[in-house]
């Protein structure tokens, strides 16, 4: 891991570059940039489960879809100010997540993956049941970005919205980083490495896993809400299991258990997909092959590979020796 001052410097430089980007890139690139940042946030939220609890959720589309639909309904029906609407959507997603997570965390491994998948598909199916609220297969279109509170309108334009998304991403990252480094996060690592031992130490691991899932859903819901308000529509595809699969790929290729890796994975995949799909229609084939290669040969992901190289330097190797062995055991 990059530590201390160098980490702060790197974060500062990245933040600076991100803040300056709207002045550098043309307006039309800003659209894809915003989508990339939203997907980075979405991938990072899943990393809380995959990377820190080793719970492979195959239903994270539920978080995205829930956030998007809650925001869509709140913004179109109630006309609340955009930031209020987004916060409410996140809360709704987290509240819904708690019972789902409680049921899903009853199992681990493959059964957990299948249960989360079932819940996401159930959500997908319910969209068609409650057609009058959700719009059925048409989804909800024409989602506004109402102004306020305090007469704020800066987020209504594209550049302003970019800063809103950027702020959400940075804020969420700092929060997630604090979470995984807290005593709470240490218990999560304990669950990942040896759940039986963690239980024997007196921790109610299921409560920890449920809380983490609710947090992961909250951040995922934030991504979904940001997307719905940006795109102006919410469609049933947001709930479909292919979204869950895609985001899981981004987490694994980016580097599960690093937070930064999945963000980069999400951002770059949206970019590469956008660029390559204009040149060749073979993109999904390449995408799938790269993913398979990573699962087989580099399960630690891109960021894992990079930091391992970084850590291989002699002066840093000793500081992270403990970390390395636990990673190798995983």
């Amino acid at each position: 891991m990059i530590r201390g001052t160098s980490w702060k410097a790197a974060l500062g430089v990245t933040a600076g570059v991100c803040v300056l980007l709207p002045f550098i890139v043309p307006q039309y690139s800003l659209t894809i940039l915003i989508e990339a940042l939203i997907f980075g946030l979405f991938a990072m939220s899943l990393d809380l489960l995959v990377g820190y609890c080793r719970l492979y959720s195959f239903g994270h589309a539920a978080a995205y879809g829930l956030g998007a639909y809650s925001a869509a309904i709140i913004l179109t029906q109630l006309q609340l100010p955009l930031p209020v609407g987004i916060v409410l959507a996140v809360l709704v997603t987290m509240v819904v997540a708690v019972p789902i997570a409680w049921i899903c965390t009853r199992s681990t491994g493959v059964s957990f993956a299948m249960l989360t998948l079932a819940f996401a598909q159930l959500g997908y199916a319910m969209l068609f049941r409650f057609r009058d609220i959700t719009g059925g297969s048409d989804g909800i279109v024409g989602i506004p970005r109402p102004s306020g509170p305090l007469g704020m309108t800066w987020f209504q334009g594209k550049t302003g919205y970019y800063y809103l998304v950027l702020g959400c991403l940075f804020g969420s990252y700092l929060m997630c980083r604090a979470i995984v480094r807290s005593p709470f996060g240490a218990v999560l690592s304990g669950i990942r490495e040896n759940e039986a031992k963690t239980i024997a130490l007196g921790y109610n691991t299921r409560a920890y896993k449920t809380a983490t899932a609710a947090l992961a859903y909250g951040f995922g819901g934030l991504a979904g809400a940001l997307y719905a308000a940006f795109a102006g529509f919410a469609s049933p595809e947001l709930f479909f299991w292919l979204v869950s699969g895609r985001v899981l790929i981004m987490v694994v290729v980016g580097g599960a258990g690093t937070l930064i890796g999945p963000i980069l994975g999400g951002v770059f995949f949206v970019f590469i997909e956008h660029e390559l799909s204009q040149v060749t229609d073979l993109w999904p084939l390449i995408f799938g092959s790269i993913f398979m290669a990573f699962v087989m040969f580099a399960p630690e992901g891109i960021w894992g590979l990079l930091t391992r190289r970084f850590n291989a330097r002699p002066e840093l190797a000793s500081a992270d020796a403990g970390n390395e062995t636990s990673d190798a055991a995983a």
Partner: protein
Amino acid sequence: MILGFILAQCLSALSQAAILFFIACGLTLIFGIMRIVNFAHGAIFMLGAYVGFTIVAVTGSFLLSLLLAPIVVGAVGMGFERIFLRPLYGRRDGGAYLLLTFGLAIVLSELIRIIWGTQPLAAGIPDFLRGIVVVLDQPFPLYRLFLIALGLAAAIGLWQFLERTRAGLLIRAVSQNAEMVHALGTDVDLVRTGVFGLGCAMAALGGVLAAPLVTAFLGMGTTVVIDAFVIVIIGGMGSFLGSLIGSILVSFVQVLGAYYFQDLALAFMYFLMLTVLVIRPGGLLGKED
């Protein structure tokens, strides 16, 4: 009249169950032996449909495609197991298989798109199965009866294979204790490859049979794989009989739900699954891990 209508609906559900069973039994066999959830099973099913279509187009014989397509696809499955899955057996992390087979699902569907194109391929029902049978005054397609018969034959055949043959004995033994079987001098890797191939061949057979009903199209695997997961989870992962029961349950819920509760048809299946899981976390006939 009412009775005839109900019977027709039941037969329709059973023919659907036959197709789902072909997919689900392979999925559950593979899981039972290898603890692998094969996410690519839907893509394998689709591959079966396309390969079957091509064999019919070249040879003109539907029966030949029923025989050859599973062999071809089974071989593809065995190759995949040999090259990609085997190196991962040492890894403690079960999620890796899930991810790898998900990658395979993407790659396979893309290869199918590149080879066969994006147009749906209408594989007609072969002439000798085209007729209509009247059951209690209700007309019923002969092809669907053929599906039920074939599904039943496959279920009995596989069951006898697992119970009565030496290969079946080995498969059951490996699913119970692979290390012990290995220690007794059996090539466990060979059993695994064989079972993976068998599971893929069954899915391919389902694909060939489903193609005349729904036409072969890209994406026919993405929904069906989820149905198969639901079936396997309801029945109990790794339980052969469970996959049969699950197939019948799910197809009845699908067919009756689509007729009587259209809005809820999709959700019904997942409700059924969640109910089973909350009451019996391991599925109806499965063991809780």
